[in-house]
């Protein structure tokens, strides 16, 4: 019966290799990612239910815009704005609302009525 030397034990504990750790970590990552995708699927299935109140109110009131930016009129109802909307206050009214930089100017669909 050979007595295990300290050095032999040292070599044996080396068994948990870094590459194994990395691969396990990556597998965990992939699993977490897949779980989130499943979560997405399941919530998407209930989307109709979750958005039901918004959809019914929008229909009832015939809404044209989402309530995202309540800073200025042309950012609250961007679908209703025209190219002059941002300048309603003054021709030289430079962009002073932060959300104005997020909402692009509307692009004319038909030349005639813009």
């Amino acid at each position, binding site marked *: 019966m050979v007595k295990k030397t300290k050095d032999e034990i040292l070599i044996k504990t080396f068994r948990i290799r*870094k*590459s194994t750790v*990395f*691969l396990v*970590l*990556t597998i965990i*990552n*992939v699993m*977490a*990612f897949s779980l*989130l*995708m499943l*979560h*997405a699927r399941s*919530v*998407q299935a209930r*989307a109709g239910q*979750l*958005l039901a*109140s*918004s*959809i019914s*109110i*929008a*229909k*009832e*009131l*015939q*809404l*044209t*815009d*989402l*309530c*995202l*930016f*309540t*800073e200025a*009129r042309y950012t*609250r*109802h*961007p*679908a*209703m704005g*025209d190219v*002059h*909307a941002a300048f*309603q206050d003054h021709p030289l009214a430079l962009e002073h*609302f*932060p*959300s104005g*930089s*997020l*909402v*692009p100017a*509307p*692009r004319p*669909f*038909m030349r*005639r*009525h813009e």
Partner: protein
Amino acid sequence: MNKAIERHKNILEFSLSSLLRRKTKNASLLAIYTLIVFAIASLLFFLSALKRESILILKDAPDMVVQRMVAGRQDLVPLVYAKEIASLRGVRKVTPRLWGYYYDAPSGGNLTVMTAAMPAGFIKIGSGVSRLRRATVADVIVLQSYDNEVPLMLEIKEVLPYESELAAADLVIMSDLDFRKLFKFPQGHATDLALTVANSRELSTLAEKIVDRYPDARPILKSEMLRTYDSIFDWRGGMMLVMMIAAVLSFIIFAWDRATGLSAEERKEIGILKSIGWETSDVLLLKFWEGAVISLSAFFFGVIAAYVHVYFFSAPLFQPVLKGWSVLYPQFKLVPAVDAYQLGVLFFLTVAPYTFATIIPCWRAATIDPDAAMRS
């Protein structure tokens, strides 16, 4: 087959040892990389979710909205227009809409006031308004009317559900009567006209007819309304584009750094590896793994964190940007909208350049003759 796997594992092992030699540098690189992936992925998730929801919520928007312009500014529409337009062929229904903005001085918030069939003196408010004014059902809200008379006292009949915040957070819905009282709104006028048409393909011809009849009218088609939201939520436009460019540039910088940075020490090491029996392909595999370890990990950490950030916590990090100066900001939980294409593009952008950036410069170093180590 087993041999090939073992070879990969062994070389991966060494690449990890090699990366661990410079723990701080590689750890911070991983952190920054993850952060950038997180930022872009969050943005992508956020925008695509909003886009999908906007399509769903606004699918029942009016086919056409007719405004009236005076000297380039939106003005009130005379109800006479409504009658005329209603008589046009193809128009099924014309609904004059009364709506406007009310600035609530005490709270500093902008409210959108709309009308519906309601008993006078009662209002329905969005849950954002309820939050803003700390008011709930049966409370009375006081609004300053444009009349300078006694202010309007309105009792809250209903608070719209929390889930509807994205559409209705700032809404105050009242009766026509109260609306006209509040804004001293002239009789015989409306804010704009909402049209329902029989055939949606005739919308543009109809719009032309309307402008012909009333040159000061400005019709807005439903497709234009939806297109506005397309462009707001498009990650290829506006601020989002700036962010994307910044991120892409960072990835290019990372990849560039790796591609050009084969130091003399690295080259010497490659020479040593070749002299102890490593082939060129082994060395290239090593460099590949060095890059892949960082970029793969960064991609997964970043995307998972972004998903949690956007869909579990409703993107709190974007809130300051979106909120701007507004006092009323809608709180909403987004329905996940994850696109395989988007993720694929993101993966390609983040993982591929960095992983393969070293292959080319390494090629020259890796093809060193093994006897070079003997000579040095």
